[in-house]
């Protein structure tokens, strides 16, 4: 089978260049190629000379999208812009796709429809009907200008379009034209960019921008979609009321309508609910057991055809097969909860935090579905981190049945401080999901170690993980013992030069309601360094906490953390007989409102003690506070290198 794949790879390489030599290069591309070459940063791979999109909506509700692209390739890494991929599906057809290039030497090449190839866009899905058509143009080399023209026909489920004018490379000119039939209206919303009003040209709305800077690559930057400028436009027609929306409530109603056929049940399912959640149990426990069943025993498998990307499969089928995707799991849990009298609502969400904000216009940019469970008073627990108090619906406990390791009552980190669309029967709203406090996401590490006279360090470390840190590490339970040991060795290898793992164990890995406890024992030779009569010991021993940061360039964006957290280390090193602490490193102290790092090394009898705490109270440090964050990272880096000096007692 491997051979078939290898053949395919070669084939793609060969056929992608099998194109006609005589080039009917269009004038718009020639004109673009004559543009004066500007000076860009030396890591700009290519520049968009022209991005032109036209969306024409017909009175029948079909959309014709026409596009032109012109790129100038500036670096070898920019050659990829000589290939254009257009997505299509059962509802979207690529009518035409052409490409051309004008090389630095002035040679011209053309690639036509027939030169393109198709392939599936399925990745994590078992199956999806989403595909892409790919066209590569010969001559795409440094100095070349490449261009494409295409046309796609859409039969949309909802009348919505996007103009993505900002990119990872600079855009010199971007133009978007919208043609609507008489009687249609549109709503345009600008995100992450100053709003512009359209011109009216020949009855069409036209927006145009020039000299749009690129989105920079930076460590721990917010999600690309959360910072890239784009415009979302919705079209409204009385004739297609079922496919148009004016606000979140109408979009939620549309979701409710397509979900409506999924909430069936079966006698087997009803029996399972009784078996899992008998009436005698407290209500919260009944909810928890059903949630755990869907979370754990329904295997994630996505099959998405047509509207199947948005519409759940019937709950009875999902229950019978024991597999489904996120919306299938949410729908099944909704049906099972309904049987015990608990109401719930599906909630589409975007897993990249920041894409939706309280200012976001209604749109379909969701990629995941979770569930809002309306907790009756009998099941209410006030301290649950995932609780949302709704003015009308009361206590909504937000739960993700797809994430196997986040218990009922908590939310996966990427869904916290995020926005989800509450889909009620007759509408809904976008709601802001709660953020956990740092104390919920803890790693508490306790090391009890002994230093031998030859510099060898040995002992045990216990790590207690909760919240985010626990859920991210619980998959260790499904890792073989051999691989678990390798992971521990890999971790220790960052900080110890020569060591062996003497033992390890994992507690509560499968019990997601409890903290995860990891213990490992090790012996590290050459740990303490001899320096004449002195012995130098790094009291921190293990763990690196500072975030990645490029200090060579100015920062453009906020710094993003997965979740608020609290990490604390406590290390006790029993010293070898005859040695005492001669000098200790200074304590670390970097404290700001959003986060802090403190540490202290001290000597107590024959024991060297070291404690530190790193707390982050937010998920995002804004640009104006980046210098403070850098100071925290610098303090951590320094503290992690610090050594204590031991001296042999006379």
């Amino acid at each position, binding site marked *: 089978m491997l*051979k*078939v794949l290898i053949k395919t790879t070669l084939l793609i*390489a060969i056929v992608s*260049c099998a*194109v006609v*030599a005589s080039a009917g290069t269009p004038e718009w591309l020639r004109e673009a190629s004559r543009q004066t070459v500007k000076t860009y940063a*030396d*890591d700009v791979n290519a520049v968009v000379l022209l991005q032109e999109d036209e969306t024409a909506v017909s009175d029948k509700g079909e959309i014709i999208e026409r596009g032109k692209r012109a790129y100038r390739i500036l*670096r*070898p890494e920019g*050659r990829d812009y000589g290939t254009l991929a257009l997505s299509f599906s059962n509802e979207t057809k690529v009518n035409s796709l052409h490409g051309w290039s004008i090389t630095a030497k002035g*040679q011209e*090449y053309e690639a036509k429809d*027939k030169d393109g*190839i*198709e*392939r*599936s866009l*399925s990745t994590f899905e*078992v*199956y999806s009907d989403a*595909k892409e058509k790919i066209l590569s143009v010969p*001559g795409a*080399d*440094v100095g070349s200008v490449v261009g494409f023209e295409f046309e796609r026909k859409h039969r949309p489920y909802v009348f919505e379009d996007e103009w993505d004018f900002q990119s990872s490379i600079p855009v010199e000119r971007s133009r978007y034209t919208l043609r609507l039939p008489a009687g249609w209206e549109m709503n345009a919303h600008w995100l992450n960019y100053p709003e512009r009003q359209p011109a009216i040209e020949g009855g069409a709305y036209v927006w145009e921008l020039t000299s749009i800077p690129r989105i920079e690559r930076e460590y721990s930057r917010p999600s690309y979609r959360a910072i890239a400028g784009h415009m979302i436009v919705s079209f409204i027609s009385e004739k297609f009321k079922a496919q148009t929306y004016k606000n979140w409530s109408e979009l939620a109603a549309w979701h409710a309508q397509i979900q409506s056929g999924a909430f069936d049940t079966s006698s087997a399912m009803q029996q399972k609910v009784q078996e899992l959640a008998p009436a005698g149990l407290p209500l919260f426990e009944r909810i928890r057991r059903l949630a755990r069943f869907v979370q754990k025993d329904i295997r994630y*498998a996505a*099959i998405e055809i047509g509207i199947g990307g948005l519409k759940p499969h019937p709950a009875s089928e999902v229950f*019978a097969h*024991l*597999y489904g995707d996120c919306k299938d799991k949410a729908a099944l849990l909704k049906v099972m909860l309904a049987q015990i009298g608990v109401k719930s609502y599906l909630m589409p969400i975007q897993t990249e935090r920041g894409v939706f904000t309280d200012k976001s216009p209604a749109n379909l940019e969701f990629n995941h579905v979770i569930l809002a469970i309306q907790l009756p008073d009998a099941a209410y627990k006030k301290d649950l981190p995932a609780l949302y108090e709704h003015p009308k619906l009361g206590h909504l406990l937000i739960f993700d049945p797809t994430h196997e390791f986040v218990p009922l009552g908590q939310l996966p980190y990427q869904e916290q401080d995020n926005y989800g669309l509450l889909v009620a029967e007759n509408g809904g709203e976008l709601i802001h999901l709660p953020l956990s406090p740092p104390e919920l996401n803890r790693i508490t590490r306790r090391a009890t170690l002994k230093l031998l006279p030859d510099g060898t360090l040995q002992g045990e470390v216990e790590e207690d993980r909760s919240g985010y840190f626990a859920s991210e590490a619980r998959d260790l339970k*499904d890792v*073989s013992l*051999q691989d*678990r040991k*390798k992971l521990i*060795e890999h971790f*220790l*290898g960052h900080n110890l*030069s*020569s060591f062996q793992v003497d033992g390890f164990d994992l507690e509560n890995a499968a019990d997601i309601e409890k903290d995860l406890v990891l213990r490992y024992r090790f012996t590290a*030779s050459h740990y303490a*360094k*001899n*320096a*004449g009569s002195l012995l*130098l010991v790094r009291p921190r021993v293990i763990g*690196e906490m*500072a975030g990645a940061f490029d*200090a*060579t360039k100015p920062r453009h964006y906020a710094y993003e953390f997965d979740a608020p957290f609290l990490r604390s280390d406590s290390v006790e090193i029993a010293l070898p007989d005859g040695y005492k602490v001669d*000098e*200790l*490193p200074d304590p670390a102290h970097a404290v700001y409102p959003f986060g802090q790092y403190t540490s202290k090394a001290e000597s107590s009898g024959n024991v060297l003690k070291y404690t530190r705490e790193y707390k982050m109270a937010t998920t995002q440090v804004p640009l104006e506070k980046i210098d403070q964050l850098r100071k925290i990272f*610098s303090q951590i*880096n*320094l503290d992690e*290198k*610090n*050594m204590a*000096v031991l001296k042999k007692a006379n």
Partner: protein
Amino acid sequence: MQSARFVLVILCLATSSLAFGQKEDWLPLTDQDFQMKEIPGNSGAPAVQLYYANYIDDSNGNEFEYHRIKILNESGKKYADVEIIGGFDTQVGSLKARTIHPDRTIVEFKGKPFEKTLFKGHGIKLYAKTFTLPEVTVGSIIEYKFKLNNYSSDTWVMQHDLYTLREDFSFHPRQWGERLSWVGRNITGPSPAKKDDGWQMEWQDVPAFEAESNMPPERNYKPTIHFYYVRDDINNADKFWQEIGKFVNEYFERAIGNRKEIREAALQAIGNETDPEKKLRKLYDRAQQIRNLSYERELSAQERKKEKIKGNENLGDVLKRGYGDSEDITSFFVGMARAAGFDASMLLVSNRREEFFSNKLLSLNNLTGRIALVKLNGKDLYLQPGVRFCPFGLLRWANTSTEALKFDKKGGTFITIPALTNDRSVTRRLAKMELSDDGSLRGQLTVEFRGEEALVHRLDAIDSDEAGRKKDLEEEVQGWLPNGAVVKLSSAEGWDAPYEPLSVRFSVDIPAYATSAGKRLLIPSLLFQPQQKDAFKHAERKYPVYFAYAFSELDRVEIKLPAGYTPESIPPKQDVSLDYAHYQSVSSCDGKYLVSERGLGFNAIYVQLPKYAELKEFMARIQASDEQQAVMKMGTKINAQGSN
């Protein structure tokens, strides 16, 4: 002069078999299948393959596969998602699948598999049949079987990503008159047994394959049986290579020829030079002046046509057109050397980057490199003018310590290309730094890459622009330095000068390099972090330790100290040796400067498992030495010298 032309010739000698199979019913389910809870010796593994079958029926052109897998934990459920790749002329047929619950009830897969397009265009379609098995829980047994019709396969693969309890193989040959033979690699179980006119084999308890860092090429450790058809008179590998050698020789002799224009070119290149080695060097330089297309972006057929680039038929074409691929350029050099009176020939050399060569595998697939062999003053000289930037006398590492086919009109034999010794691959680092009162370290770092190190860097950068080279080098150096180091390249010289070192200068800024403890300042004396430690994190290994090539690191670090500190303790001299490796470090301090020198010479590429412990200890001692710190104290001035 692409050696693809060999293919037809070789096919006459040995042809890989075309595939296919035999029918098989569901195997009976055994108590052992249901009782199995974990893999002995690998507790916690996600799943186990209870049974695997692969029946290749080359006479009917089809192949049968059978998988029975038991899910042992939650993450093993992923094996219930199945993807079978078909396409070209291959059809996936006779697909059956089912889930067997721990209580032995059986749920048949009744759905229709989805067809996922992997590639469609130009009249070709490649697809995957995908499906997911129903009602899978921990403890379930899932099994599926299918037939690939019109599928060509010639290899049994015995090791999978799951531990496999039992596996059956058969190969039924076509009836075209050739003799079917096989060659095995890493055979740790029974060998194929003859049955009727084909072969069959059964293996048991085959562990999952797990790669390790710094292991030799993985392919050399995965057991496989490769089938091929061979002419009746080719009764052993030596005979095969002898015959191949004759064909290859004929091909190259025809291509190199004895042309007047090549003789003239050789004379012109040599000029008045009389010393044999200098003459040869001039010919080598002349050959490397030919535009080497093997190191340029691959052009489409239309681009080649527009740029009037054609395939060279002989050395006359190479000379006239002024371009060629690596093989053309090596041939051009051999042709000129012969014209100048040298005994010169071509070698087909294997490449050990992806796989170690075995001449038992009767295939030219891994003999992709070209080396010129020249007798100079009675000694064999191996040269690679076809490798861009490769200086006279150096070879590309992947073509050293490996076998090459030497051929003449009598046939082919194998010789071993000599190893690249560590003195041919040197990284020299000189850091002139100044330590501030706040512990930060700033200064200049000069790095010289010599020999193979320079060649590797030059070839890696061949398709990069200046910004790309800068970024790559800065990232490489950053990897040598402590966390938080800021590295800026200030100049790089020698990219296009194969006989000069590649010399790169950086400015370096390392915050918090030295740390304080009371009145003491602790300064790491050697700036650079050890580079090879990843290979030695794990207590045990399954496979030998492998480095691409032998190497040397020579470092000198000069640190100007802040005023007011005097040395209290300087790291003592370290000297560690193995048969094939040597390390030394020495530090001194005069109160103003802390100066440290370090040398590591590693003269091996392959260290067998029994020597892993000694090598691990060697590396641990190096790392401990590299992490030593000088202790400075406010106080009386003392001159200190590192000592044992």
